[in-house]
Each structure stands twice: as C-alpha cells, then as structure tokens.
C-alpha cells in the first residue's frame, strides 16, 4: 500500500529542507523560543521532533540551531569546551551538510555557538546566540520525579525543597557539593537548570549581552535567558556561591583564569592541567603564551608544532 518516496541520499540532497527541519516545524520552534524569551527561565513544552541523531546527544540544541540558522550565520559547535570533540564534530558536519553552514572555531566570529557543558572563556558579545544542549531541563527533577508536581512548584515559585537540599549539603559536607548544572534563579523568578556546565561558568550567564537559548529534545522543553538578564546561582548569605579553582595554571598556555581539564600523562600519577576551551588555549599560544608543559605535550602528541 505504501508509496515510497525515494530515500534521500548524498546525491539527492534537496529531499531534505534547508537545515533538515521543515518550515512549519521551524516556525513551531521559533514560537516556543519567543515565549521562552518572554518568560525568562520558564520551560516551554514544544513538539520536539525525532532527529537523525540520538536523543541525549544534542537533539534539543540541534533543533534550536536548525530553527534559527540562516545563510549568513557562522556556527561554532563545542563539546566540553572543545571544537574537535567527537560529538561536536558530528553536529558541525550535520549543519555543514544540511544547511551549507559556514562554521568557525573562533568564538568572536561565531554568530551561533551550540554548546554542550561549557561557555567559552572569551566574553560573549551582543548579537551572539548561545544554544545549550540540555539533558534534563527540570532543576527540581532529582528532588521530585513527577512532572505534574514540578510544574506546580514552578508556578507557585515553591523552591523551598531546593533550598533545603543545598542546606543539607552544607550540613553534611560543609559546602554545596553540586559542581555542575548548579541551579540558578533567573530574573528573580524561575529556578533554572543551566545545563551541565561547570558552576565555574555560571557567573558568565549573569547579565550576558548574548541571547542564551536552551533546548532539551528528549524532554521536549525549550527555555531562554534574554540578554542583560540577572542569573543568580542559589546560595546562602553565610555560604556564598563560589566557583572551582586550580592550584596550577594551564600547562599549555599558562592561563590562570580558565576552566581546566585534567590529562593523565602516565601511570605514575603524572598529571597535566589544560584549558578545556581549546580555542581560548590556542589563541593564547598564538599570542606567545607558553605553559610549562608545552614541550612535553608536544612530545606526547597532544599538540604539534606548526611553523
């Protein structure tokens, strides 16, 4: 009974619409985005589509990017702060293929930055759009598994449970032990999951001149933080919010102000700390900054000398 459409392949590219999604779907997503921008931090349900990439691998962010990208955009895709992480490469290839996207690794050149788990170190500017991939949009989910209940809690701004959780952390460990996806209060109203970025990045969201969009494909939610909006990490007066810090600078570029990844260099306890933001690190090395382990890293093949 079925009349098959020809199955689109490499040579029949026009079978898919620009940026993969059909225009009606893009319009539906844009409407959800507009609502999200109008009510900062509020999770807007949307008709998340099945994507040709796996759920939990960035389908929310991909759908947002597909809905907002145009021929003039420059797209940067990062995962763990780096442009060359496997899934970032895969998503970048998806947009190169379906939207003829111009891609870039330069944070300052990008008009859209799709990210998983990091905000770039270089300050964002007005006109740039951050698209976050979100696995779990509900900051209260680990405290209350039922969506029916958490929606009511947001509606009534009933966030006592979250405060109690943070308090219990402090009582037990002397500090809040959430290190990523650290809950924030947006515009003084909604408590929001910033996606699993390290809490180190939370302050970058506050009053950012860029537009920040969040897409959770599997959970079918979109939310947003408009430019110049207050984003406060939850804390207590006597236990103020604080971010991670390292005892040593980046081994490659010597940066002291960036978020560092740990690279295990041998089985004798050897460690090297390097910037998680690969573009930031490269830019600094180009500017002549040298970390103490740059030569070792070159020897081990982590970086290579280019003339």
């Amino acid at each position: 009974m079925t009349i098959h459409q020809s199955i689109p392949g490499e040579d029949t590219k026009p079978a898919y619409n620009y940026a993969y999604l059909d225009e009606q779907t893009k319009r539906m997503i844009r409407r959800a985005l507009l609502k999200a921008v109008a009510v900062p931090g509020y999770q807007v349900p949307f008709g998340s589509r099945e994507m040709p990439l796996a759920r939990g691998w960035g389908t929310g962010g991909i759908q947002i990017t597909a809905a907002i990208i145009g021929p003039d955009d420059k797209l940067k895709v990062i995962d763990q702060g780096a442009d060359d992480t496997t899934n970032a490469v895969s998503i970048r290839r998806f947009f190169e293929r379906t939207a003829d996207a111009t891609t870039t690794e330069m944070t300052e050149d990008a008009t859209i930055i799709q990210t998983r788990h990091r905000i770039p170190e270089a300050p964002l500017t007005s006109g740039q759009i951050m698209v976050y991939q979100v696995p779990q949009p509900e900051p209260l989910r680990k405290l209350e598994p039922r969506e029916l209940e958490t929606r009511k809690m947001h509606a009534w701004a009933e966030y006592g449970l979250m405060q109690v959780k943070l308090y219990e952390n402090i009582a037990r460990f002397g500090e809040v032990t959430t290190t990523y996806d650290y809950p924030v209060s947006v515009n003084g109203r909604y408590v929001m999951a910033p996606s699993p970025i390290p809490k180190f990045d939370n302050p970058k969201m506050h009053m950012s001149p860029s537009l920040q969009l969040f897409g959770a494909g599997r959970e079918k939610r979109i939310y947003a933080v408009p430019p110049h909006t207050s984003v406060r990490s939850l804390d207590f007066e006597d236990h103020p919010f604080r971010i991670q810090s390292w005892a040593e600078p980046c081994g490659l570029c010597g940066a002291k102000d960036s978020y560092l990844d740990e690279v295990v260099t041998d089985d004798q306890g050897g460690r090297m700390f390097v910037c998680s933001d690969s573009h930031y690190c490269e830019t600094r090395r180009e500017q002549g900054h040298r970390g103490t382990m740059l030569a070792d890293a070159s020897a081990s093949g982590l970086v290579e000398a280019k003339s």
Partner: protein
Amino acid sequence: MYVAVKGGEAAILATHDLVAEARRGDAAVPELAVAQIREQMGLACARVMNEGSLYDPDLAALALKQAQGDAIEAAFLMRAYRTTLPRFGSTEPVDTAKMAIRRRVSATYKDLPGGQVLGPTYDYTHRLFDFALMDDEPQRDPSSAPTGHLLPQGEKDRAPLDAFMPRVPDILGAEGLMEAEVPPEGDPRPFDLTREPIAFPADRDVRLQAMARGDEGFMLGLGYSVQRGFGNTHPFVGEIRVGEVSVEFVPEELGFAVDLGEITLTECQMVNQFAGSKEVPPQFTRGYGLSFGHSERKAMSMSLVDRALKSREFGEATEYPAQQDEFVLYHSDNVEAAGFVEHLKLPHYVDFQGELELIRRIRREREQRLARENEPLPEAAE
C-alpha cells in the same frame, strides 16, 4: 606555533567504514536481501514497525539489515525517516471487527461465534531445534514429517473461516457487563505525540499511542509486574486476534472513502474485574492493546498496562509503576531511553573535573581537620 592535534573528524569517518565492514561480515557468505528479511524475519520486522511507528515492511527489513539486526537501532532509523514524511491526512478509523482473521483465540469462552482459530503460532511448538533449517534449502521428506503436520495441503482443502467473528468484549458489552468504550466529548482527533509535547495526567489516546511505540521488553516487564503483585489486575484474555484490516482514506476533493490497502494488526482485549461504585453497577473493565504485524506479546503486555493505567480513572490506588502514567510514558520509549543511557559514553570530562576538584578538596580539608583533632591536648584541665 603549537596547535592541538585534531583527530576527531578523520576518526569519525573511519568508524563509518568499520561499521559497514562489520555489517557485511564475511564476504564469502552471500549478502542478505531485504526481501528475505521481510519474508523470513517477519516478527522482527513487526517489532521494528511498532517501535518505529511506521507501517512499512520493506523499510523495516532494510532498517534491520542496515542495523545488523539491532531492533532499537532499526526503530531509530524508521523514526528518523518517518519524521521527514509529509502528512497528507488521517485515515478513517480501522475496524478490527471486520478483520480478515488469521488467528483468533479467546480464553473466556470455550466456543463462540466464529470459533477458536489457532493460526500460525509458536504456542504449541516444543522448543527443540529443527536442525534441518541449518541447510540452505531444507529438503523436506513428507514421509518423515514430524507428527502434527495436519494442515490440509492445498488452499481449497482448508475450511473457510466464518465471515463474522464478533469481538469478545462486544459480546460482553451487549449484555451490559463490559465497560463501554465511548470516545471523549466531541470525538476529537487523537493526540499525536510525535508532533506535540505530552502533558500529564495523560489521556488514554496519548497513553495507548505511547505504549504502541513503546519497547516490547519494557512493556512486557511492566505487564508482568502487575500480574505478580505490583498492581492488582486479574485479567482474562477476552480475545487476541491477528489478521488484515483495510485502511480507508477520504480525500477532501472526493468526499468518499478510498481503500488504500490493508495492514496486518494484532489486537488484544483483556477482561478485568471491577467492583463497581455507587453510580456504576459491577462490570468488567477493559485493557486494550493494538500493534502492527503479528506481535501478540506486545499487544498483550500493552493491554495489561493499559488497564493498570486506568486505575486513576476508576478511583483505585496508583502506587505501582505500571499504574503511573509519567513512569510508563516517559520510560517506555526505547529510542529515547537508548539515546540517553548511551549518551553517558560521550565525553564528560568537564563535569568530572568539577567532581574531582571537589572530592580532593573535601578529603584534604577532612585530613587537616582530623590532624588538628589528633594533636595531643595540652594538660587536661580536670
């Protein structure tokens, strides 16, 4: 100048080559044809059509071939394709009462109009290997056929089935003993969970739709749980029927129904007890399951869980997983579940670094505190 070594892109492309090689296996063994999978792996194709939410045996077979027989990966391929298809309308509701029956069994009546039709089933096979199937073209010697081969040879010798086979719940319903199935006020078009986000509590159309595409194993486990005591249903198989129904569509410009063809469906209706209430006299309640192809296990599991999910509507306690719509609907989708479980293999070193920094610091602070506490006290002030 130093640049980071970037192997990501080349490595990803190499995985595509490697998986193609793994899929093909030993090149000395002939390649499977899609038609062979469709014809000889029909039950696997049915599962892929169900969980891929797309009735297309050819594509299901292709998906299984491409996915090396991985049912979830195949369902994922189906869904990613389905989502790009234009929708030109909705068909008329299919009428399973008019099904061309292949199999129809009831556990509630010994005999009934139309009779019991066993049809093709593994139910009464002994699970002994048929080593003759090891040969490429098994040669069957009719004289050595195992006993039990009683199927009259030749189509004309088979007794035709009754044209009229009423559905068992309809028989009960005629007596007023069965919970009536009435569409909601105004008979609105069913919800489409592939286009709209689900809200909770979910209505029955949403629940049935989610279960129809839900993972067979997950639905089986949930159905089993209500039988064992995590939920209290005591069901009877009112009827299971398998066969072909025709699909009709009314094009706007014609204004009358056009037959598009037929699809194979499996329907299961469970009859459950219900004590009744002040307003409703005691009656049986229904658990419903419907799936593509011949897929009895799926339809039966679905009908068990459908009844369990009605608990709230009947004012029963909803303390077990199978009775909670959020639990069932959010976790039965295997393409979503597989994606999220498997995303754990993506890099998480940024988050992990945060945890490392925290645990090292907390341990360091703890050691310092213990060291302070263990310092010998100056003269105990008695």
